[in-house]
C-alpha cells in the first residue's frame, strides 16, 4: 500500500518539479530521494506489517511478506538504476522531470501488479505500467528507431491488452460467483468449464506477451533495441520481473489448484522462449540487441517459476529478480557509456577501463549462471523448483542445455573485452565516468557476488 500511494504521489511531485525547477540536473536528486524514501517506506511496511496510509481497499489489494519483499527488491533495483543512470536519463531529452515522473508511475503500476487481488487491479496495474513505457520508448523523438519502437510497442501492447480483457471477461463469465477477485474463483471439479479454460488461456497468452515469452515475444527485441538505452535497461529488468511476479501471483492464487491443466502449456511456452531467446541471441552483432534477446532467454528461465509454483519457485523468483535485474542494470550502465554498441566496440576494454571491464565480466558471468554469482543461485533455485514438481523433468535438461548455449554469446563480449585488442581510439569518454559511477558499479558487482555466496541475505525476508 505504501508503495502504491507513495510512488503515485512522488510521481506527481516529480511532474511539478519540472514546472518549478528549471535546471536539468536537479530532478535526479529528487528522484533519488524519492527512491530512497520508497525503499524505506516499503521496508517499513514489510517489517512492521502496518501500512503508513491505511486505506480500505475492500480487499482489492493484499500485501504479505512475499510480495512486499519482492517490491523491496524492485525498489532497490530502481534506486540503483537511478544512481547509475540518472545522468544518462538527462541526456535523453528536455523533459527530465517528466521522465522521472513516468518512471514513478510505472513503479506505482508495478506495486499494483504485485499486490492486486482482483483482476481489475491486474488490468489497471498492467496498463499503468504500459502506457508510460510507450511514452518513454518514444521519448527520443528525433530518433526514428525510437519512434518505430514506440509505435510497435503501442500497437502490440494494446492488442495484448485486448486479449487480456477478453480473458478477464471469460473468467468473469465462467465464475459462478460473478466476481473479479482472484481468490474468489470457483473452478469446480474435473476439467475447467470452457469459459474458464478459454479465459485462463487468454490470460496466459497476454501475460506471456507482457513478460515477452515466446511466441509472443516479437515486440521485445525491436522495442528494447529502439528505445533509449537507459529506459531499455529499466524496461528489461524491473518491469519484466514485475510482470513475472504478477503472472505467478495470478496463477498461484487462482489456477494453482489445477496445475495439471496448464503445466504442459507453460512447459511448451518455456521451451519456445528459451529456444528463441538463446538461439537468436547467438548471432547478434549489436550488444544492445543481444541483451534484448538474452532478456527473452532469461524470461524462459523465469517461466520455470510459473511452471513450478512452489516455495522454491517463489524464493527463486525473488532471487532471480534480484540477480537478473542487478546484472542487467549494471551491464546496461556500462553499455551506455560505450561509444559503439557493437561487440567490436568492446574490443580491448579490459586494458582501457579495467574496472568497468571487470564489473561487466562479473555481470555477464552472473547472467551466464557461473557459481558464486547471484545468477547461479537463481538458476539453481529455478531448476530445483522444477525438479521438485517431479513432472516434465526433461524441462530441466532443456533449460540447462540452453544455459550452456547462453555462455556462447555472453562470453563473446568477455572475449572482446579481454582477448581482443582495441583499435586505438578510446572506447569510452573518461569524462562520462565519474568516481562515483565506478564505486556504484563495484557495489553492484559486489552485491551480485554477495548474493551468490549467501542468498539468504535476500531470502531472509521470507523466513522472518
Amino acid at each position: 500500500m505504501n508503495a502504491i500511494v507513495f510512488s503515485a504521489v512522488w510521481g506527481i511531485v516529480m511532474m511539478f518539479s519540472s514546472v518549478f525547477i528549471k535546471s536539468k540536473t536537479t530532478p535526479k536528486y529528487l528522484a533519488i530521494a524519492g527512491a530512497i524514501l520508497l525503499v524505506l517506506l516499503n521496508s517499513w511496511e514489510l517489517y512492521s506489517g502496518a501500512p503508513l496510509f491505511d486505506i480500505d481497499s475492500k480487499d482489492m489489494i493484499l500485501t504479505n511478506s512475499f510480495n512486499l519483499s519482492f517490491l523491496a527488491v524492485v525498489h532497490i533495483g530502481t534506486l540503483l538504476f537511478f544512481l547509475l543512470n540518472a545522468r544518462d536519463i538527462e541526456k535523453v531529452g528536455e523533459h527530465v522531470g517528466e521522465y522521472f515522473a513516468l518512471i514513478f508511475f510505472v513503479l506505482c503500476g508495478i506495486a499494483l501488479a504485485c499486490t492486486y487481488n482482483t483482476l481489475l487491479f491486474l488490468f489497471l496495474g498492467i496498463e499503468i505500467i504500459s502506457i508510460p513505457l510507450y511514452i518513454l520508448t518514444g521519448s527520443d523523438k528525433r530518433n526514428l528507431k525510437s519512434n518505430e519502437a514506440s509505435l510497435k510497442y503501442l500497437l502490440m501492447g494494446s492488442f495484448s491488452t485486448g486479449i487480456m480483457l477478453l480473458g478477464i471477461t471469460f473468467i468473469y463469465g465462467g465464475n459462478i460467483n460473478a466476481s473479479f477477485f482472484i481468490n474468489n474463483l470457483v473452478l469446480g471439479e474435473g476439467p475447467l468449464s470452457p469459459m474458464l479454460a478459454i479465459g485462463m488461456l487468454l490470460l496466459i497468452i497476454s501475460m506471456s506477451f507482457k513478460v515477452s515469452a515466446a511466441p509472443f515475444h516479437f515486440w521485445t527485441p525491436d522495442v528494447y533495441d529502439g528505445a533509449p538505452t537507459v529506459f531499455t535497461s529499466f524496461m528489461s529488468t524491473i518491469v519484466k520481473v514485475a510482470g513475472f511476479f504478477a503472472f505467478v501471483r495470478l496463477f498461484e492464487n487462482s489456477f494453482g489448484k489445477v496445475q495439471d491443466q496448464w503445466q504442459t502449456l507453460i512447459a511448451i511456452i518455456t521451451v519456445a522462449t528459451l529456444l528463441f531467446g538463446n538461439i537468436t541471441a547467438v548471432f547478434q552483432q549489436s550488444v544492445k540487441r543481444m541483451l534484448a534477446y538474452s532478456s527473452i532467454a532469461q524470461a524462459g528461465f523465469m517461466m520455470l517459476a510459473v511452471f513450478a509454483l512452489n516455495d522454491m519457485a517463489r524464493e527463486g523468483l525473488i532471487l532471480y529478480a534480484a540477480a537478473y535485474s542487478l546484472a542487467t542494470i549494471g551491464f546496461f550502465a556500462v553499455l551506455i557509456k560505450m561509444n559503439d554498441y557493437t561487440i567490436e566496440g568492446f574490443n580491448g576494454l579490459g586494458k582501457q577501463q579495467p574496472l568497468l571491464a571487470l564489473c561487466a565480466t562479473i555481470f555477464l558471468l552472473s547472467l551466464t549462471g557461473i557459481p558464486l554469482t547471484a545468477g547461479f543461485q537463481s538458476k539453481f533455485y529455478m531448476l530445483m523448483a522444477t525438479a521438485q514438481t517431479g513432472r516434465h523433468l526433461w524441462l530441466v535438461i532443456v533449460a540447462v542445455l540452453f544455459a550452456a548455449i547462453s555462455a556462447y554469446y555472453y562470453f563473446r563480449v568477455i572475449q572482446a573485452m579481454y582477448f581482443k585488442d582495441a583499435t586505438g581510439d578510446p572506447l569510452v569518454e573518461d569524462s562520462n565516468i565519474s568516481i562515483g559511477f565506478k564505486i556504484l558499479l563495484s557495489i553492484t558487482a559486489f552485491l551480485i557476488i554477495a548474493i551468490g555466496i549467501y542468498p539468504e541475505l535476500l531470502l531472509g525476508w521470507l523466513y522472518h
Partner: protein
Amino acid sequence: MSITTLIFILLSAMAVGSAVMMLLSKNPVKSILWLIVVFFAISGHYILLNAQFLAVVNIIVYAGAIMVLFLFVVMLMNLNADTEPVKNYRLHIIGIISGGSLLLVLLSTLYKGENGQMVQMQIGDQGLMDNLGKVLFTNYVLPFEIASILFLSAMLGAVIIGKKD
C-alpha cells in the same frame, strides 16, 4: 419471434456489417464513420440490456470524444485520400484465415461446453446511474483514484511526445 430478438438481430447485423465496412473502406474518414456506427449499435445493445449508463458513456466517450479525436488526427494529416496501396494479398488471406479459425475454435468450444444460460433483458436496475454511482464511489473509490494516474501519465505523454521542441 419477440420484438427483443428482432431488435437484437437488427443491432447485431448493424454492428457486424458496419465493422466489416470499417475494415473494407479504403478512406480512413469513412472507416472512422463506420466505426462510429458500430459504437451506436453497441450502445443500442446496452440499452437493450438495460445498462443505460454505459450506453450513454459509450456514446459520449467513444463516439463523441475518441472518434472525434481520431477524426481530427486524420484531418490534420489529411489522409482522407487512400494512402494504403494494397499489395501482398497473401498476407491478407492468411490473416483472415487465422482470425476466422480462431473465432471458430472459440465458438465451437463454447457452444460445445456451455448449456446456454439466459440473459436478463430490459429489466434489472443495476445498470442504472445511481446504482453504479454508489458502487463506484464506495467500493471502487481506490481504482477510481488510481485511474487518475493513468490520465496523468497520458497527459505527460502528450507533453513529452506531442510538444514541439
